């Protein structure tokens, strides 16, 4: 049996009415992702990659390059206009975009986890931190109160949020703690696949380091596969084994992270690496 967990082929998302010239008139060589003929925006086009168990894949690129769009489609926040993705869950293969809404919701709740840059997207600020984690456990059909409490407490302890603050509203937490609660929530159902969208952006350096450490520990402990979206080369260097570089909705370079950082081939990647130093 292969160790593959996710296989993405030809994934595309075009916003707007689309014309036959959309693809040929956008991309890095035209320096735009907006079609000059019909005004459609090509958020992502022809994204292909495979992800293996316990692997961390980095997606790097500037704002508007399509990295978040790609992850949103895989987490069913958005639907692609073309392409396919196959999720290998044990012995079962799921053609992700052929599933019905209920199946997609169930997969999203039970098999995937998502950590957003903005905790307001990932957490419900009307309820307690424990309640946020309980929500995910309840979504995966756990109906035992004491067990939910225990698991939520364990998860918060694991992500270094004090149990004493479990019943407080995440509104009262610092940015780093909110991010930890989000990670605890994402891990609640022990998903084999985790999406991290700019998790450390906006946090101060020491908190960033602690969150990244936590993510690496989780990967080692649980063997969770992750897709990390970031524009921070440091994060990519630390976390990702393989990296995709995106620009104007296209993948312009992919390969081992070390290779990309040490020997960038594409002009944009070269500029990116040079400007970070």
């Amino acid at each position, binding site marked *: 049996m292969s160790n593959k967990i996710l296989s993405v082929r030809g994934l595309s998302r075009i916003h707007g009415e689309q014309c036959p010239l959309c693809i040929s008139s956008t991309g890095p060589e035209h320096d735009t992702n907006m079609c000059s003929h019909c005004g459609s925006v090509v958020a992502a086009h022809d994204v292909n990659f495979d992800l293996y168990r316990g692997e961390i894949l980095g997606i790097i690129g500037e704002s508007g390059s399509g990295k978040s769009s790609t992850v949103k489609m895989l987490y069913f926040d958005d639907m692609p206009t073309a392409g396919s993705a196959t999720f290998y869950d044990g012995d079962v293969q799921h053609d992700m975009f052929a599933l019905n809404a209920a199946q997609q*919701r169930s997969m999203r709740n039970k098999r995937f986890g998502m950590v957003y840059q903005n905790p307001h997207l990932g957490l*419900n600020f009307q*309820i307690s931190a*424990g*309640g946020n984690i309980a929500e995910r456990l309840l979504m995966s059909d756990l109906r035992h109160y004491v067990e939910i409490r225990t698991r939520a407490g364990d998860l918060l302890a694991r992500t270094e949020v004090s149990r004493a603050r479990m019943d407080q509203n995440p509104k009262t937490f610092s940015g780093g703690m909110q991010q930890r609660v989000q990670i605890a929530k994402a891990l609640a159902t022990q998903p084999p696949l985790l999406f991290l969208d700019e998790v450390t952006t906006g946090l101060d350096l020491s908190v960033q380091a602690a969150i990244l450490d936590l993510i690496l520990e989780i990967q080692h402990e649980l063997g969770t596969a992750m897709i990390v979206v970031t524009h921070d080369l440091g994060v990519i260097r630390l976390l990702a084994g393989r990296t995709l570089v995106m620009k104007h909705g296209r993948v312009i370079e992919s390969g081992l992270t070390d290779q990309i950082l040490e020997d960038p081939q594409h002009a944009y990647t070269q500029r990116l690496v040079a400007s970070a130093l």
Partner: protein
Amino acid sequence: MNAHYELPLEDAGYSFGFLDEYAKKEVRRCILKAISIPGYQTPYASREMPMGRGFGTGGLQLTLSLIGEDDTLKVIDQGSDDSVNAVNLRQFVQLTCPGVDVTEKTQEATLIQSRHRIPEKMLTEEQILVLQVPYPDALVVVEPSEARRKVMHGEADYSRLLVKLYEDVVRFDEITISHRYPTRINGHYVIDPSPIPRWDVPRLHQSPALVLLGAGREKKIYAVPPYTVAEPLVFDDIAFRVEDFRDANGQRIACRCCGSTVSFLDELIDDAGNITHQCSDSTYCEEQQETISARKRA
């Protein structure tokens, strides 16, 4: 009755039951759909009634569509046959449905319209209970968008309601919902069983009588068909509790009139500030008192 308010039956030509036959037909079709999909909120064209929405127009339209000349109607409001809402609705039906009998006795009625209570006396297969509903959707407390609520109902996604219960237990050590307790019908749809107290929720489960719920303002009809599973939403390890009516010594409080210790009680505070309790179901209470006085005479 004030003659001034009488409907000009001859001149206006109102048909039996106030609603015209097409309106009744539409309501009946929606009732059939609601019974076929237990717990599903069936939209219907709620008509303007000669009373404000929120005064039981949903329940009244169900009653008027179902009632026939050989029916016997009982109308109650919070358990009482004599409160304003019940009296007015009963008079309206008497006015517009000539030949229909009205009663206060639960066992004599074929059709019971109720606001916020289920009669204490067990209903039978021959009876239909119509409940007036202000807010039909149990999900409204967690999701403001009706379009999204419809999807959540369709996918039976009620985790966010359970999160609310979780938060309740965390904060107060028990579930604090006193009425409108979310109840799952036939294993799928969760309904708002109208503002009946928790006490009445277990009596929806496997009820021999058909229970119809009508929301006039929100234009929805839904049903708990006879002998259908109705489970209040709870955690596996926290049992659903009804009101227990115990005093500070743990003693079950009795009704001050009939002495019953097995009925749902209303709390009354007199002018001196003393708290007493009395059966909420007035007919039940009177019957108990009659039984006691008959026993004394014997």
